[in-house]
């Protein structure tokens, strides 16, 4: 029989563990966003700043292997098989875009950072790179483009690609359609200084990010934060491995 004081201790211990889990997840997201936003990674002297985070996938094959691992964790976190399939395909499209459009043209760090986690009833996935960004790549086929905001609008709504001799260009349109197809999904997408949110959790995804000082001359590349709601009867109280 558990005593009343023992029950209070247990509840306090669990809620403290949950708060730590939430803080660690938020600091991971914050670290990734800060990594993306830095003007010059190599010149950052702050000891706490991780210039080569563990989540950096220098090659596409590494990213795709980690994507398989992430899909297993999604299932353990309580997402249904359909949700795992959709979230994996969306993350896969965004991540593979990093390599499709930046091979040989990375600004400094080679590859994309790919990380994931869970807090409360949300599963989050983050993909970010320090590549050319949408504006620089799409400008080669759309000379009339004036800024990164227009680049985002075109990339997510039209079948278009900067790899003009190839039949492709529907990946981000697919991402938008999947995110908007149902509630409980959200995407914050930023390229250089412009951003867009999608889905009913898009604004919440944006709210997870720290405010970065505007005098930073970065960011380069793209930053994507996906949020997916875990069905209520499947939310686990265990911390993820």
């Amino acid at each position, binding site marked *: 029989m558990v005593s009343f004081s023992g029950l209070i201790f247990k509840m306090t211990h669990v809620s403290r563990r949950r708060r730590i889990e939430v803080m660690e997840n938020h600091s991971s997201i914050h670290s990734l966003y800060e990594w993306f936003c830095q003007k010059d990674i190599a010149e950052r002297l702050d000891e706490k700043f991780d210039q080569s985070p563990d989540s950096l996938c220098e090659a596409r094959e590494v990213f*795709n292997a980690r994507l398989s691992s992430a899909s297993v964790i999604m299932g353990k976190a309580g997402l249904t098989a359909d949700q795992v*399939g*959709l979230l994996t395909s969306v993350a896969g499209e965004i991540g*593979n875009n990093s390599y499709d459009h930046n091979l040989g043209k990375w600004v400094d760090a080679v590859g994309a950072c790919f990380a994931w986690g869970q807090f409360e009833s949300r599963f989050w996935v983050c993909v970010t790179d320090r590549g050319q960004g949408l504006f620089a790549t799409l400008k080669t086929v759309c000379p009339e483009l004036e800024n990164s905001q227009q680049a985002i609008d075109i990339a997510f709504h039209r079948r278009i690609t900067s790899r003009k001799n190839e039949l492709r260009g529907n990946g981000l349109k697919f991402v938008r359609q999947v995110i908007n197809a149902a509630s409980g999904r959200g995407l914050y997408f930023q390229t250089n200084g412009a951003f867009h949110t999608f889905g009913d959790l898009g604004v919440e995804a944006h709210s997870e990010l720290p405010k970065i000082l505007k005098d930073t001359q970065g960011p380069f590349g793209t930053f994507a934060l996906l949020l997916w709601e875990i069905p209520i009867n499947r939310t686990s109280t265990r911390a993820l491995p």
Partner: protein
Amino acid sequence: MIIKISQFGKILVSRPAGREAVLAFQAYGGADPKQQPILELDFDGILSLAPSWLDEFVTGLKAQGFEIHYLPTTNLSVRESIKILEEPPEE
């Protein structure tokens, strides 16, 4: 002829992987478009499919002269990928 797409993997998301899959099928698939012009894609066992992979695979098969049919599936990532692939091209 039926192609079991799960033979190429359970998570199919990248264009290079789609291209490689169609090259492998060309070498070992044993199908001749003149004898068996119709290929039916069976998505049973797939966990996740992205339109980039499917685009490369289907486009490669069509370039060889095959006609592609999709067998019914309940997998949402497959259905969404087929839907976006089948959208008419923009003007």
